[in-house]
């Protein structure tokens, strides 16, 4: 039987919903399902007007990615969107316990505005720590991460051990996957403490700002040499990681870099220090003018343009090292690339839509007060409780998650409702931070046209998409997110 002839098209179908940015004689297009393509301006215009012939060499690729309106695979595109956004239905997975506000360091940029070592009234009690763990396990998320922070969390060892043991017991009963993480400056680490942490499979993260002079200038420690302590214990945990024992998993230690004004221009030395210590990730993070850092911004801060230059110089150097066989990734790029190349959520809560405030993470202050995130807690410590969402002893999980601050953050960080973001080519991969907006622009919504964080994110995405156009760079960058 003769096949029925397809109906003749009476009008051009035009383009489906897509986002774009012009870049010289090329145009970057993206869509809700996270696909992207580079087009010449003539091809872009043809696509937009529905005049792109199905014989065009790019047609098949564009159609497969959902850029051709009458070739949309709704099932496939919807499944891709659903998969990348599956966290929306899972509840908070990251629970940050601030075990104490005390710290033996006085870092130039310390956002947590640490209290002095004697201020024991800012210690979390073991009972409150266990209560926080119980609250965390109230989340429906099957994967719970509890991160211990401070101040310096090793100053409150009793609460740390209480929380670790209680969490392990709760996880065994609940059948949930539990990850425990400690962020410490290592100055109070001992072999006994290290053994307890390893036996309970607590992963370890520290701060490393670069070579000794830079690190010690940023991270002032009256009790000795902060850099020496950091390096000593990093090496210890590296060795333990290499010599795994059958009883438990030992994790590779990691480090966080905070870029202050003193760091600018020293990207090579900083990256070399990370490589020398066997660290495979360097997270080039900008300093946020939040809480304490905001007050001293004129001394320690920098412009978005200054940071962008530092970031791009660092990335360029890291790529050079990669091409010569050195294993090192820039973490922010790797996180963004996970979204761009794999359209998977890398768990970076600051770049989700809506952001992770309350619905992805909760910060637990030493006294049991709950905040949308650690940045929100820092604003609280500075005297403004706009981001406080409850107290672990007084409020139910439901009340906390449906409270005003949590809702406001969800609404304000929905990119669909942000006038600039809704139209931005990077929207499928990006996220805004209501706390940053509140602190720097006086509103949860912010004004993205003149927002420094937005400029930094745009700069990062712009650099990454630019690098992906060159095959030699693309090969390295794809390797960073291969699984």
């Amino acid at each position, binding site marked *: 039987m003769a096949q029925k002839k397809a109906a003749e098209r009476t009008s051009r179908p*035009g*383009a*489906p*919903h*897509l986002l774009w940015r*012009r870049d010289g004689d090329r145009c970057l297009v993206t869509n*809700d399902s996270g696909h992207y393509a580079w087009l010449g301006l003539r091809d872009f215009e043809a696509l*937009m007007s529905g005049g792109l012939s199905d014989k065009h060499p790019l047609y098949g690729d564009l159609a497969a990615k959902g850029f051709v*309106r009458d070739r*949309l695979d*709704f*099932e496939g*595109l*919807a*499944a891709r*969107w*659903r*998969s990348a*956004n*599956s966290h929306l*239905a899972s509840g908070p997975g990251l629970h940050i316990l601030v075990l104490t506000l005390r710290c033996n360091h006085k870092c130039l940029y310390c956002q947590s505005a640490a209290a002095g070592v004697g201020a024991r009234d800012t210690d979390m009690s073991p009972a409150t720590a266990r209560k926080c763990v119980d609250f965390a396990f109230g989340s429906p998320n099957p994967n719970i991460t509890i991160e211990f922070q401070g101040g310096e969390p090793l100053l409150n060892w009793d609460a740390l051990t209480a929380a670790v043991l209680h969490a392990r017991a709760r996880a065994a009963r609940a059948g949930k996957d539990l990850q425990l993480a400690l962020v410490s400056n290592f100055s109070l680490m001992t072999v006994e403490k290290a053994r307890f942490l390893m036996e309970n499979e607590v992963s370890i993260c520290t701060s490393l700002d670069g070579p000794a002079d830079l690190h010690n200038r940023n991270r002032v420690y009256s009790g000795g040499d902060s850099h020496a302590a950091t390096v000593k214990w990093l090496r210890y945990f590296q060795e333990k990681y290499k010599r795994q024992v059958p009883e438990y998993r030992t994790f590779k230690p990691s480090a966080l870099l905070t870029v202050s004004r003193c760091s600018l221009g020293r990207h090579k030395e900083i990256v070399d220090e990370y490589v020398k210590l066997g660290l495979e990730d360097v997270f080039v993070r900008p300093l946020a003018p939040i809480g304490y850092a905001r007050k001293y911004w004129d001394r320690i801060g920098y412009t978005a343009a200054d940071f962008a230059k530092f970031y791009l110089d660092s990335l360029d150097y890291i790529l050079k090292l990669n091409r010569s066989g050195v294993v090192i990734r820039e973490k922010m790029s790797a996180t963004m690339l996970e979204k761009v190349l794999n359209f998977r959520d890398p768990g970076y809560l600051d770049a989700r839509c809506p952001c992770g405030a309350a619905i992805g993470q909760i910060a637990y202050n030493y006294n049991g007060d709950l905040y949308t995130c650690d940045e929100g807690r820092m604003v609280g410590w500075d005297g403004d409780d706009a981001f406080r969402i409850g107290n672990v002893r007084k409020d139910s999980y439901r009340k906390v998650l449906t409270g005003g601050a949590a809702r406001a953050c969800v609404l304000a960080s929905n990119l669909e409702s942000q*006038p*600039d973001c809704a*139209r931005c080519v990077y929207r499928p991969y990006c996220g805004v931070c209501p706390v940053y907006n509140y602190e720097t622009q006086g509103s949860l919504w912010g*004004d993205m*046209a*003149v927002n420094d964080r937005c400029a930094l994110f745009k700069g990062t995405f712009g650099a990454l998409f630019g690098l992906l156009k060159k095959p030699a760079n693309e090969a390295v960058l794809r390797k960073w997110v291969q699984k």
Partner: protein
Amino acid sequence: MRVSLADCALETVRYAAHAASRSARVFIRLDGPGTAVVELEPTGGCTAAGAAAAFRAELADERLRASLWEANRELRDFMLLKALAGEPEKAPARQDDSGLTPEQEKELDALIAQVEAEIKQEAAAGGAADPLGITKTWEDKYGAKKSRRKN
């Protein structure tokens, strides 16, 4: 700068103004029902001509975005609703490693049941006797294999 509202909606002018506010303060007022007047006051190092060119480029893009949005609103809503209403991702079902299809499994179960029933019948009919020792293992009948190694 005068913009005819017959060519684009006031909302489109507003979005373009928002985008152009990176390099200029933008003021919009209506001059009668059909015209918007846009005034640009450059900030930073931008010139007046530069700010006007930036606004015109943003306005052209914004008009394209508005028409694209209108034409695709229903399609996009459909796709996102489909994504939101779809089954959440489940862990893949544990794979059976027997390599049998469900039909083959059923046949096998039936065969096993049949054999078991026959064995029961034989046992009930005195079939437990085994004069040839065929139910014995090799080792029961002939003993375990001896090592050839010399100690």
